């Protein structure tokens, strides 16, 4: 299945892209997908990401579906 992943702020800068399509096995959780994406990337291990799927917050155990849009959200600082 294909999932689109969105990156923001410092994560977008480190990865040098704002989005990426990834192929995942059925039943992959957000946590697993995130780990696969960020593996080996320096400076990302300690960022406490939150996750959103299709513009709603989900927890790390959420099971992704084909065509989902996963957003990796660094700590926010609006307002």
């Amino acid at each position: 299945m294909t999932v689109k992943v969105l990156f923001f702020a410092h994560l977008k800068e480190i990865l040098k892209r704002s989005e990426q399509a990834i192929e995942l096995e059925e039943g992959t959780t957000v946590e697993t997908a995130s780990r696969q994406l960020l593996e080996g990337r320096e400076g990302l291990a300690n960022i406490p990401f939150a996750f959103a799927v299709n513009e709603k917050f989900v927890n790390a155990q959420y099971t992704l579906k084909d065509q989902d849009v996963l957003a990796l959200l660094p700590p926010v600082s609006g307002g």
Partner: protein
Amino acid sequence: MITHELIDTAQFLSRQPDPSCGASASFVGIVRNEHDGKAVERLFYECYEPMAEKQIEGIAARAKTKWSVRDIQVIHRVGWLDVGEVAIAILVHSGHRDEAFSACREVIDEIKRTVPIWKREVYRDGTEQWVSCEHAGRHSSRR
């Protein structure tokens, strides 16, 4: 809700309340010229716009019900902002002042805590950094 343009605070706050309202409370957030002792030149707000719109809408709707207020309006600016410019404005109309203040406070606190917007500060010494204030969607006591 989310705007890329300058916020006209006077116009935003001039919205007429329903005749049943005896209170209007507002909060206006402005770009400050310092952060942790460093002189701020300007800043950039990055935003996950479709989600931010939904989050703000949900926050306002929940606060409206919880505090039984008549109306809540929110506008948050994104993109480049200079020191002194308005980043966010919130307006609450209600029957009485207590719930107007409470709803207004709750809305700004929830926006700071959960809305996917990120601030990059540019300092007068030429350095810049992303400012991490809150862990989106989770409880934090940091402000």
